[in-house]
């Protein structure tokens, strides 16, 4: 049942764009189709999560291929957000990228294709189908990123994306083929015991780290992510960032679930990589001027948190601490859902703000909360959630990981190997605090204060459908945040599917109950307090309260986002190497001068691109072998012949 619903959802999503390709007038049909697909698939996923595994298989006329899908708890768990976001994004796109706008059909077609293929990746039971769907997602997202390929910026973003993604795909080729080599089947089946210890298993794990790391945007493989998410249309960024990069996480979890025992070293690698990308991701985010780049770097941070959780799970499992492992996996998986929800919410509302203010520059917005209150509220909710503050969903998943960290220190013996997990706690603490800093800056600068540009002051609230698209996401954030105990059983099913050999401690779901209670209390009291205060000061006088001695305070006197972030950027200067252009006025009457600073991506701009340029320079020498003289070409012929004759005469 669930499998059929899912496949129907996939089909609807994939087909949704075609009518718009044919005629502009069909864009409504597209929206209806993709929303319908999203709903159908979501129902299917929920059924799969509650009822249990279901499968479906059709023949496929290519060597080794089979159109086989399997919806087990893990797949269903990853499918749910995919379909939710597909539907929301499709609804949002209806007005965000109206049919009249350039390449509307193109965007709709590839969006549907990407969403459908994404769902297919999450439930493919045949490795070649998995691979094919994976690559379809990659290519269609490439086309979406390159939507406005007239701008050099999106061209290079798309180029870097497709390159990185193709490297990942080739690594995945190797993974799939190696799996076939050890299992002699093209399906995902558990590996023989002890595979983790032999070279093939280790090769698999290394390749997985590369392939899935690139796709998930884990540091240092994150290079493609910021540019891509900034360049794509907002609803596309929402899906790419909310669920697209989860493809990597899913692949990783799926592969790990096939091993009977993963080497602890791999877990430690995951842990450290996760910690690194969570801290550095958020640090880089703070330094951004571009709202969507900022959100993109937060995706790196959240992927880091998720991977950290997986690392906890692996390490704890190898050292026989089931509760700890379950906490790690559960935190990771739940964060997959949460990040999907609040990141999509943030991208959609950010898109609305950009749509109305006609700029992505944070420092050219401001004061939007008065002009578009709904969007502001939605962004605020998203911000509170992503910062991991109670009583919203972000807190729940991070709380699980914190508890894991603390359990590792209370639960392990002296010098126990699992003590490395203690690192999680300070890492999460730093990440959380920085994320808070970042979103205070973002929300404050974009929505609060006075408008910093003409466009911002003329901004107006976006159409109803665009707002409606955010509602399910808001509800999701609230539901998981306020009623986590409700999701406990689903979560434990998913965890069991992710780590089949892990004994599921009964105490686990009970842990979430008090969180739920306190979350409800907090929400109740806080809302009550705000409302009462609003009531008290309803008829308060409004004036220019504090002009700090300036007769005419202008909006340019406001604290900019960059200066808000300056402190933190200073702390992380060693990693970010900000480029600051500050002309010093030294004459008696200094001429007009402008201060500017920006933070390039260290890995991409300071390491990778120079390396590639170098490689290209070296390859340039090959040109001398093809330099026009036929005599030389004939010489190659002769030399080859002689060499081969010599070989044959051996």
């Amino acid at each position, binding site marked *: 049942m669930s499998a059929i619903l899912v496949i129907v959802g996939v089909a609807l999503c994939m087909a949704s764009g075609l009518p718009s390709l044919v005629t502009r007038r069909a864009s409504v049909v597209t929206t209806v189709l993709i929303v319908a697909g999203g709903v159908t698939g979501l129902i299917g996923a929920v059924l799969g999560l509650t009822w249990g595994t279901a499968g479906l298989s059709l023949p496929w006329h290519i060597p080794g291929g089979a159109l086989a899908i399997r919806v087990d708890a893990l797949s269903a768990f990853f499918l749910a957000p995919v379909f939710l976001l597909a539907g929301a994004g499709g609804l949002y796109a209806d007005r965000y990228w109206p049919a009249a706008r350039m390449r509307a059909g193109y965007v709709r077609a590839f969006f549907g294709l990407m969403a459908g293929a994404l769902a297919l990746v999450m439930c493919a039971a045949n490795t070649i189908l998995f691979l094919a769907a994976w690559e379809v997602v990659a290519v269609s997202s490439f086309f979406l990123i390159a939507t406005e390929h007239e701008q050099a910026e999106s061209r290079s973003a798309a180029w870097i994306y497709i390159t990185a993604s193709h490297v990942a795909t080739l690594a995945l080729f190797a993974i799939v083929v190696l799996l076939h080599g050890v299992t002699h089947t093209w399906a995902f089946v558990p590996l023989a015991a002890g595979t983790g210890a032999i070279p093939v298993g280790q090769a698999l794990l290394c390749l997985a780290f590369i392939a899935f790391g690139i796709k998930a945007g884990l540091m240092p493989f994150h290079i493609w992510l910021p540019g891509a998410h900034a360049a794509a249309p907002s609803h596309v960024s929402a899906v790419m960032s909310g669920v697209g990069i989860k493809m990597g996480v899913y692949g990783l979890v799926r592969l790990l679930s096939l091993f009977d025992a993963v080497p602890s070293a791999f877990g430690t690698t995951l842990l450290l990589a996760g910690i690194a990308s969570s801290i550095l991701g958020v640090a880089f985010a703070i330094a951004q001027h571009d709202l969507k780049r900022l959100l993109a770097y937060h995706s790196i941070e959240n992927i880091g948190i998720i991977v950290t959780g997986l690392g906890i799970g692996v390490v704890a499992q190898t050292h026989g601490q089931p509760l700890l492992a379950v906490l790690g996996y559960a935190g990771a998986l739940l964060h997959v859902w949460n990040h999907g929800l609040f990141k999509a919410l943030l991208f959609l509302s950010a898109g609305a703000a950009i749509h109305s203010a006609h700029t992505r520059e944070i420092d050219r917005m401001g004061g939007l*909360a008065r002009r578009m209150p709904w969007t502001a509220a939605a962004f605020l909710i998203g911000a509170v959630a992503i910062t991991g503050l109670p009583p919203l969903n972000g807190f729940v998943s991070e709380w699980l990981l914190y*508890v894991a960290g603390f359990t590792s220190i209370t639960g392990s013996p002296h010098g126990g190997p699992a003590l490395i997990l203690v690192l999680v706690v300070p890492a999460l603490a730093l990440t959380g605090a920085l994320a808070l*800093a970042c979103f205070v800056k973002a929300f404050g600068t974009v929505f609060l204060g006075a408008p910093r540009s003409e466009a911002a002051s003329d901004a107006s609230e976006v159409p109803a459908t665009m707002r409606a698209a955010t509602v399910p996401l808001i509800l999701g954030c609230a539901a998981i945040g306020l009623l986590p105990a409700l999701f406990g059983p689903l979560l434990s099913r998913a965890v069991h599917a992710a780590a089949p050999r892990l004994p599921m401690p009964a105490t686990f779901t009970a*842990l979430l109950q008090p969180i739920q209670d306190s979350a409800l209390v907090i929400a109740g*009291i806080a809302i009550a307090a705000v409302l009462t205060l609003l009531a008290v*000061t309803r008829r308060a006088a409004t004036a220019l309260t504090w*002009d700090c001695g300036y007769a005419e305070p202008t909006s340019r006197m406001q604290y900019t986002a960059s*200066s808000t972030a300056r402190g933190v950027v200073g702390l992380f200067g060693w990693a970010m190497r900000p480029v600051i252009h500050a002309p010093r006025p030294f004459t008696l009457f200094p001429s007009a001068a402008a201060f500017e600073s920006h933070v390039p991506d260290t890995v991409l701009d300071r390491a990778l691109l120079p390396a590639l340029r170098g490689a290209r320079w070296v390859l340039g020498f090959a040109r001398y072998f093809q330099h026009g003289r036929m005599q030389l070409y004939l010489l190659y012929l002769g030399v080859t012949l002689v060499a081969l004759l010599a070989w044959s005469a051996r």
Partner: protein
Amino acid sequence: MTAVLQLLLVVLTAPLLLGVITRTKAIVAGRRGQPLLQAYYDLGKLLRKETVLSSTTTWVFLAGPAVAVVVPLLASLLLPLAGPRAPLAFTGDLILFVYLFALSRFFTTAAALDTGSAFEGMGVAREITFAALAEPALFFGLLALARISGSLSLSQLLTVDGTSWHKASAALVLIIASWFIVLLAENSRVPFDDPNTHLELTMIHEVMVLDHSGPAFGLILYGSALKLFVFSALIADVALPRTGNPLIDAAATLGAVLVIGVVIGLVESSMARLRLVRVPQLLIAASLVAGFAVVLVLR
């Protein structure tokens, strides 16, 4: 029962702490100083005043004060101030404790930015930067305590008894020292900030509330008093052994908190504000001290 007692304790005696601090400073400086209950009078006065809102602001501007009051109260419910067990105690509540304050920071800073005034922005920038550095210190301390007590709930975590003092006294001392620094930073006292000066360039917390007035400002004042009280109570809890009798424990807590107030006063009158560039160094030092405590207990 204990819950009510505890709430009353916090709600009523929090402003007293401010009085104690100022009085201490006055005595050290050789003045008579304000009456101990001055803070109560101020609150009363402010609540009676009318509010003037900046023309740029939205509802966020008022959410700040509201949350600033609600959060410390909720947080205090997680601490065992009267009796061995806090009214709200469960595995992992210590994380909630820390994150509640993060919540209040989010809204107070957002409220500050809502005015669009340059000075508020300045304050926000400092607040969020320093908080990011203070957070790890807090968590390191909690980690060490968790190791010592083998529990994940503040109620067991903080009811430190003689054996653990005897077992890990060094670590506990380090934790208390580090947390005291965090307390000073979080509540913007000297040497991090000077609540008395109103020179914007030197301020962190004060500069964020410049545009508030009337009841809203009163709430902010009260909220910061509550916050200071809760932090002091946290440290007091680490230091104090518990009898189990609610009344005695409550009294002990109050006493300890007031003592801490005196100490704060002494610190404030004995040293000057740090230059802003030095602040991060001090906070990092605090984190290191707490981290060292963790190393000690793990040894």
